[in-house]
């Protein structure tokens, strides 16, 4: 286990971190709230939905800052990934065709399902029945197909 360094000896984050620090703090607080929220009277499978959702939002935020708005430097982006502010595996999927809006990695994990299929949220709205309202079991996603 690596030594835990005191704050004064820690390497400061790369330049530009100050710009996004506040928003990251908001995400951190939201995550903390979600983690501490009681799960007594909600179905068991829904207990982790807010955590998945916040994680997705934060990853999306960093992904957009780096790839779409080009607002943060490569160093900062890598530092953020390394420090767990964003999910690198999820972002890796977003770069692929057909996965641009993927909600979470579990929803494309075919090995975990009975019929080796993806989650219902991966089905485009056009192929669902008229007026069918879906919400996936793993993260509460209502549909993350690219064409929607």
């Amino acid at each position: 286990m690596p030594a835990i360094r005191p704050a004064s000896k820690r390497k400061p984050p790369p330049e530009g971190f100050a710009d996004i620090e506040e928003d990251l703090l908001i995400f951190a607080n939201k995550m903390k709230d979600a983690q501490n929220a009681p799960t007594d009277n909600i179905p068991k499978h829904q207990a982790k939905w807010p955590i998945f959702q916040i994680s997705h939002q934060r990853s999306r935020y960093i992904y957009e800052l780096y790839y779409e708005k080009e607002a943060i430097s490569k160093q900062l982006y890598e530092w953020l990934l390394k420090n767990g502010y964003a999910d690198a595996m999820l972002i890796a999927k977003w770069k692929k065709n057909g996965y641009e809006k993927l909600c979470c990695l579990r929803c494309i994990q075919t090995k975990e399902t009975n019929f080796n299929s993806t989650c219902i949220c991966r089905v485009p709205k056009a192929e669902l029945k008229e007026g069918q309202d879906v919400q996936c079991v793993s993260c509460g996603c209502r549909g993350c197909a690219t064409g929607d």
Partner: protein
Amino acid sequence: MLKSTYKPSPGALPPLPPGWTEHKAPTGHTYYYNASTKESTYKRPGVTPTPTPPAAASPFGPPSASPVPGAHPLAAAPANPSMSYLQHQAVPAINLSDPRVANALMAQYSQQSQPQHQGGRGGFGAGGRGGSQQQQRPRPQPVDKPKAKIAILGCEPWFLVYTKYGRRFAFNPVKNASYWRIPEKILPAVIELDKERIRRKAAGEPPLEEDPRYKSHDKEEEKAEGKNLGSGQQGLEETHDYDSSEYEEVEVTDDEGADHNDAEHPSQHQRTEDENQGPIEFTEDDFAAQLAMMEGDGMDIDQEYDFAAQAENVEPLSDADARLLFRDLLADFRINPYSPFQKLIDEGDKTGVFSDPRYTALSSMRERREVYDEWSREAIQALKEARAKEEKKDPRIPYLAFLQEHATPKLYWAEFKRKYRKEDVMKDSAHHRSFNDKEREKLYREHINRLKLPHTQLKSDLKKLLESVQLRQLNNRSSAASLPSQILADIRYISLDAKTRDEFIEGYIQGLASPPEAQSAAEEAEDEVLRKAREERKKREKALEERERRVEEEKRRQEKRLAVERARLREEERELQRAMVVDKKGLQSQLGGGAAAGGEASKEDEAKEER
């Protein structure tokens, strides 16, 4: 075009001579045209024009004079004795037990009897006309009504009465006479009044009507008026006779004729009270109410005109404008461009973004998101550029400021450097390779040496430095806090201690001239760009405002429509309920009621036709 209040009843008119045809003018008047002679006239041909207008004023009015300025000559009076005689004959022959027939007849009958009566023939007594019949008379077309009256100063009993359509007449409540043509006696006073009105309009003072001096005087006079009215036909006739001997032109409108009837028939009075306001009998209250009504109407119309006018001036809100408006909103609320869109939405209530009308300039969340992303990318780029510019600033400026604060003759350069090695200003910057330790040492030594110089020399040096700067950069409008970098980067600037130096500089700046007017072309171009941007923005905001107003108006209109529909629905329901109620008498009464209702319906139909 003004409408005459008088309506000839078509049934009573004799047939037209051959070659003449009857037409309706766009204003609603009937006129007659002879195709062979290409002659057209308002007067009904074939009938020798009656020498008098059909109103009660007829005995003393000159036959050719049109009583209403701007109105068409009245058609000949329809009074036809033979017709009325026939009517008298016909009445008993018809089976009046049938309510439909009776009602239809009565409607016709009462209508025809009116002009006859006004003609002074006095065919029917009050007893002959039941209240129920008069209700069936069609409501009069919009008639000219008195709107405001002003006392004519100097000619005391006289009033100048303004009507709804902007006409005016002189009115003498004592003699109870009205004249369209202002009598010569009071003409100078009226001219004075007009002058006063124009003057007030120009000065922006309240109009004459609101001035207590011009208000109709007191209740006594009103009472006198009322009494005069109450005294009845005879009294009126007397005054009119008196008037006619004095003035060549006495004008009494048809309204007034109706009022004469009122005096005679109290039953009719009730009905006409609210609509036929003759000039004689309007009281202070009526006048106020009418004025209020007119003002209300006028306001509405004005607003509508405003909308119309603005619609012409302001272009509709285009898509690009809507996007720009949303961007303006983001910029105005100082939204952090690094923040996610979700944050804007989450905190929209708190920051007041949602309540801003510009938020609704874009209709969908998807569009807003698009615009937000675009805006944030550009804002971040702009921020980065601004920062890069900051970096490029002379590194000497912060270093010299630091020296002024910390450098003392007690420390050698090596000591100073070691002591403050962690400070930003002591570190080499990637952007300014040329400003290295050697430069810093040189500046430090020079500064320490200068500290030993006498105070007066330091001051004169500073003055020399200030004088070397051009007037465009340093003038009486610049402040000591924002001096040009040329001064800040000079060693002479920091030699004096900060307080005395700032005082000295402020004094110097105040003694300077104002900046030269002629600015460089580049600056002017920049100004131009800024100005244009501002104008564009103003235009966009105007367009948005216009749209908001239109939406508001539409909403109001819809509400009104809804209310009307609802009222109609309620009315229908009530009618249904009434129809559902069958009392004990059963079918008989139901049938009777039905017949009566049918009669009513037929009357209504007739009324419509007559209109």
